[in-house]
C-alpha cells in the first residue's frame, strides 16, 4: 500500500469518525430527551388511566347493586378483574373490599400483596382529585372508593401496578430506538463511504494513475468513468494535457481504465448490504410466522415442520450456487444480480400473501434461490474486480458486510414486524430488494467489462482429477468436517430457528427476539475484523479456529445451566464471538493447509470447494434442531449442538496433532 493510499485512507477515516461522532452524539441527545420525557410523563398518565379503569369497574359494581344484587352475592368479580388485567398488562392486581363489613372480597389473579390490612387502609383518591399512588410491596397502588347511587360507600377498589413497569417500558422503547439508531448509523456510514469513494477516492486514484504514467512519459489510460465534480473535471483536464503531449500509448492502452477497484468494491458492498438487509428482515420472526400458517404436511409434526421454511431457504440458497456459476459465463453481473433480486422479490411477495404453509414454503424456496444467486454474483464480482494480492481483504469485506446486514435486518425486522405485522414486513423486504437491484444495475459494470475482467484474471483450466488430492488432504477435510461444518449447522439451527421459536415460547416480544438474534450479526461485524487483524499479526490461525469452536460450544452448553432468555442470549453472543475467531481463521488457514493443491487449482477454487462443502449441509441445521427439540425440548437441543461441537473440536485437535503437515509448512 503506497503512502498516497495510506494518506487517503486516513483522511477518509477522519471524515467518517467525525460524521459518526456527530450522528451518535445527536442520537444520544435525542434518545436521552425522549427517555427523560417518558420517565416523567408516563407515571401520571398511567395513574390517570387507572383512575378511569377503577371508575369503570366501580360503575359496574354499582349497576349490579342497583339491579338488586346484594354485594355478598355478587358473582364473577374475579373474572371481570381478569379481563381488565388482560387488556391492561401493566396492572399487577385488582382487589375489592365491600364497605358494609360483608366478609366477601374479590381478587383478580396475579400477585396480591400479603398485607391485606394495609391494602385496605391506603389513602383513597377522591372524585376529581389528583391520583394518590401509594407504595406497597414493590407495587404502586391506587385506592378508589366505590360509591352507591345514594352517595353511601359500597366498598373500595385497589389497583396495583408493577413498580418496575415504567422502567421496563421505557427501557424497551429505548432498546427499539437504539436499534433503529444503530442501523441508521450503519446505513449512514455505508452511504458516506460510497459518496466519498466515488467523488473523492476515484478521482484521486485517477490523479495517482496519471502521475504514474506521466513519470514514465507514457500516455495514461483513457477513463471509462466520469465524476462530475471539481476533482473529476481536474482529472479530465490532466488526461487532455497528456494527450496534447503526444506521448506513446501503453500496450493495453485501447482498453482504457475501469473504475478503481476500491470504489467498485464499495459499490458491490452497498448493493449486497441492501439486498441482505431486505432478505433478513424476516429472520427473527420467520418461525413465528410459520407457526401462524402451519398445517401438518406429510405427517410431519410442528417442531420439525416449523423448521422447514428455514431449511428450504438455506437448501435452495446453497444448491443454486452450483448451476448458478454457469449463468455468470452467459450474463453480466448486473443481469444476474437483477435476476436474483427478482426471484427474491417474488419469494417475499409469495411469503407475504401465503394463505397456507405449503405456499409459504414455496415463497421461502424462491427467496433462498434469490439469495444464492446474489451471494454468488457478489463473490464473483469481488474476484473479478479486486486484484489478486488484495483478494483476502475483498473476501473479508464480503463476509463482514453480510453479517453487518444480517444484524441490521434482524434487528430492524423485529421492530418493523412489531409495528406493522409479519406480512407487511415481507412487503417491505420486497421494496428494499427492488432498491438494491436498481442500485446494482446503476453501479455494476456492463457484461463487456465483466467478460474482459474475467478473461484478464482467468486461471488455467483444471480437470476433475486435479481436485482429488484436495479431497484426500486430511487437514483440509478435517477443517471442513470438524470445524466449518458443525459451526455452520449449529449457527443456522440456533440463529434461524431454535432461538426465535424458544424465545417466543418464553413470552419475548418480536422486537426483543430480533434484538437477541441480531446479537450474533453485531458481534461478528464488530469483533471479526479486529480478531482477524490480531490473529493475522500473531499467526494464531489454528489456535483461533479451535478456541472459537470451543467458545461457541461453551455458549451452547450454557443452556444446560441457564435454560431461559439469558441462556439463549449468552449462547448467541458466544457464537458471535467464537465464530468471529474461527471463520476468518479457517479461510486464512486454507492457503497453508492446501499448499500443494493451491498451485494447481488456484485459491479461488479451493475457497469455493470449502464454502460449498460447508454451506450445502447447513440446511440440515433447522431440521436437526427441530428433531432434537421434539425429543428433548428447545433448550436441551441447543445443549446437544454444544456437545457435538465439543466432540468435533477434540477430533480436530487430535487430527492436527497426528496428521502430517504439508511439506515446508509449520502446523
Amino acid at each position, binding site marked *: 500500500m503506497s503512502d498516497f493510499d495510506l494518506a487517503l485512507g486516513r483522511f477518509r477515516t477522519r471524515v467518517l469518525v467525525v460524521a459518526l461522532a456527530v450522528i451518535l452524539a445527536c442520537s444520544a441527545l435525542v434518545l436521552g430527551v425522549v427517555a427523560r420525557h417518558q420517565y416523567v410523563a408516563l407515571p401520571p398518565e398511567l395513574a390517570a388511566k387507572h383512575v378511569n379503569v377503577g371508575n369503570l369497574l366501580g360503575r*359496574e*359494581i354499582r*349497576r*349490579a347493586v*342497583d*339491579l*338488586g*344484587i*346484594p354485594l355478598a*352475592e*355478587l*358473582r*364473577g*368479580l374475579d*373474572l*371481570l378483574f381478569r*379481563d381488565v388485567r388482560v387488556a391492561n398488562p401493566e396492572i399487577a392486581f385488582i382487589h375489592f373490599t365491600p364497605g358494609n363489613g360483608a366478609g366477601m372480597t374479590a381478587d383478580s389473579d396475579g400477585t396480591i400483596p400479603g398485607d391485606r390490612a394495609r391494602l385496605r387502609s391506603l389513602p383513597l383518591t377522591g372524585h376529581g382529585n389528583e391520583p394518590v399512588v401509594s407504595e406497597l410491596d414493590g407495587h404502586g397502588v391506587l385506592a378508589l372508593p366505590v360509591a352507591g347511587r345514594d352517595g353511601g360507600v359500597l366498598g373500595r377498589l385497589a389497583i396495583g401496578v408493577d413498580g418496575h413497569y415504567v422502567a421496563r417500558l421505557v427501557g424497551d422503547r429505548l432498546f427499539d430506538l437504539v436499534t433503529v439508531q444503530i442501523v441508521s448509523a450503519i446505513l449512514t456510514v455505508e452511504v458516506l463511504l460510497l459518496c466519498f469513494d466515488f467523488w473523492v477516492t476515484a478521482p484521486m486514484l485517477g490523479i495517482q494513475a496519471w502521475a504514474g504514467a506521466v513519470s514514465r512519459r507514457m500516455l495514461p489510460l483513457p477513463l471509462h468513468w466520469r465524476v462530475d465534480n471539481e476533482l473529476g473535471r481536474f482529472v479530465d483536464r490532466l488526461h487532455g494535457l497528456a494527450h496534447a503531449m503526444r506521448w506513446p500509448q501503453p500496450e493495453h492502452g485501447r482498453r482504457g481504465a475501469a473504475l478503481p477497484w476500491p470504489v467498485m468494491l464499495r459499490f458491490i458492498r452497498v448493493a449486497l448490504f441492501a439486498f441482505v438487509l431486505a432478505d433478513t428482515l424476516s429472520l427473527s420472526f420467520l418461525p413465528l410466522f410459520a407457526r401462524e400458517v402451519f398445517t401438518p404436511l406429510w405427517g410431519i409434526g410442528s417442531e420439525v415442520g416449523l423448521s422447514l421454511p428455514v431449511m428450504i431457504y438455506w437448501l435452495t440458497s446453497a444448491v443454486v450456487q452450483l448451476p448458478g456459476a454457469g449463468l455468470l459465463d452467459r450474463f453480466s453481473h448486473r443481469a444476474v444480480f437483477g435476476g436474483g433480486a427478482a426471484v427474491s422479490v417474488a419469494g417475499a411477495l409469495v411469503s407475504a400473501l401465503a394463505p397456507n404453509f405449503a405456499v409459504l414454503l414455496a415463497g421461502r424456496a424462491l427467496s433462498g434461490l434469490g439469495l444464492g444467486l446474489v451471494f454468488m454474483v457478489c463473490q464473483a464480482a469481488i474476484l473479478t474486480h479486486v486484484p489478486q494480492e488484495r483478494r483476502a481483504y475483498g473476501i473479508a469485506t464480503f463476509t463482514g458486510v453480510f453479517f453487518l446486514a444480517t444484524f441490521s435486518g434482524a434487528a430492524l425486522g423485529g421492530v418493523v414486524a412489531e409495528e406493522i405485522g409479519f406480512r407487511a414486513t415481507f412487503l417491505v423486504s420486497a421494496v428494499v430488494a427492488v432498491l438494491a437491484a436498481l442500485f446494482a444495475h446503476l453501479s455494476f459494470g456492463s457484461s463487456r467489462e465483466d467478460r474482459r475482467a474475467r478473461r484478464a484474471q482467468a486461471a488455467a483450466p483444471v480437470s476433475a482429477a486435479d481436485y482429488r488430492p484436495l479431497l484426500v488432504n486430511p487437514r483440509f477435510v478435517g477443517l471442513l468436517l470438524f470445524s466449518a461444518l458443525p459451526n455452520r449447522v449449529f449457527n443456522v439451527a440456533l440463529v434461524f430457528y431454535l432461538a426465535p421459536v424458544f424465545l417466543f415460547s418464553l413470552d419475548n416480544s418480536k422486537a426483543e427476539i430480533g434484538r437477541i438474534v441480531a446479537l450474533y450479526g453485531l458481534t461478528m461485524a464488530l469483533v471479526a475484523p479486529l480478531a482477524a487483524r490480531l490473529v493475522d499479526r500473531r499467526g494464531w490461525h489454528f489456535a483461533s479456529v479451535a478456541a472459537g469452536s470451543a467458545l461457541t460450544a461453551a455458549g451452547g452448553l450454557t443452556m444446560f445451566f441457564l435454560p431461559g432468555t439469558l441462556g439463549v442470549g449468552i449462547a448467541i453472543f458466544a457464537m458471535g464471538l467464537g465464530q468471529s475467531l474461527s471463520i476468518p481463521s479457517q479461510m486464512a488457514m486454507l492457503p497453508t493447509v492446501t499448499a500443494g493443491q493451491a498451485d494447481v487449482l488456484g485459491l479461488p477454487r479451493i475457497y469455493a470447494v470449502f464454502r460449498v462443502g460447508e454451506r450445502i449441509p447447513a440446511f440440515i441445521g433447522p431440521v436437526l434442531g427441530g428433531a432434537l427439540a421434539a425429543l428433548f425440548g428447545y433448550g436441551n437441543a441447543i445443549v446437544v449442538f454444544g456437545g457435538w461441537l465439543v466432540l468435533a473440536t477434540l477430533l480436530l485437535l487430535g487430527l492436527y496433532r497426528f496428521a502430517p503437515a504439508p511439506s515446508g509448512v509449520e502446523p
Partner: protein
Amino acid sequence: MMGLSRRRLLALGSGLVAGAVVPARAQGRPFHVFAVQWRGATDVDRGMKDYLARAGVEVRYTERNARQDHKALAAIVAEIKRERPDLVYVFATEAALGIAGPVDGDPALYVTDIPVVFAAVGDPLSARLVHDLRKPGRNATGVMHLAPVSVQFEAMLSLFAAKRMAVMYNAAETYGRGAVEQLREVAARAGVELAVDTPLADDGKPRIELIGPTLARLAATRPDVLYLPSTSFFIPLAKPLTEQAVALGLPTFSANEPMIRSGDAMAGLVASFYEVGQFAGYKIEQILRGGKHPEQVPVESLSRFSLLINMRVSRRLRVYPPITMLRYAEIIDAH
C-alpha cells in the same frame, strides 16, 4: 323480423325467462304473498312486512291462521294451489312442514311449484325441510331463529353455574326432539345431570293441563335451571307456564324471546323475532324482485343473538347473574 335487432331479441328472450320466475313483475301489479301463520300474527310477521314496505316492494297479502291445527294446513294448501300466489311465507316449523312438506313429500299434498320462504324454524335440516342449508335443493328457503343448542347450554352454565338441569319440551314436535338429543350430548360431555320431561298425553299430543304436573316432577329433581326448548306450544302459555315455574322456585332459561319478555322466564339467548322477520323479508325480496330461485338463496340465521335477563324474576328467585354477563346482557325489568 324487420326493425328487430339481435340485442332486442335477446332482451325479449331474457324477459320471457325472468317472467317465468317473477310473473307479477311483467304484469305491473303488486306481488301476491300468501302468509301462513301458525298461532296468529307475531313480531316475525310484522318484521317481514315492515322490511318489504321499507324496501319499496309492493305486496298484496293473503293471510291465514292455522291455529296450531295440522288439519287446517291441508285446507290452506288447497287454497294456495287454487290462488297461485307469487310466493308463500310460512311461520314456524310445523306450519312450514304442513305447507311445503318434507324434501321428499308428495307434490300433490304440498306446495312445491311456488316459492316458499319460512321463518322462525329451529332446525330445518333435522325437520327435512331442505337438503342443505347453503343450497336448499328445492323451491323453498328461509330463516332460522335459534342459537345453537350447544351455545345456549354454555350460556346456562355461565349464568347459573349449573350442575343439574331440567328440560321440559314438546315431544310431539320435530325440533323439540332434536334439541333434547343435542342437549343430552353436550350435558354428558360437561358432566351436567339432565332431567327431561314432556307434557304429552297418551294420544301423543301436548296438553295444557299436563304442564303443571310435568313441572312439579322436574322441580322434584332440584335443578339449578329449567330449560325450555323452542316450541310454538309453549309461547301462547308464556305467562302461566313460567309463573308456575317461579312458584316452584325454578329459574327458567328459554330459547324464545316471548317467554322472557311476556312471561316470567329469567333468561334466554334469543334472536329478536322482529329482526328474524326482517331477514325473511330480505329473502322474499331477493326472490320476488331479485329474480333468484329459492334454491340459490341459502337458509340462514341472524349472526347475533341477545342474552336477555329478566331482573324482576332474578330478584324474586334470589338467583343472580354474574357481573360479567351484565356487561352484554339486555336487562328487562331493571327496577
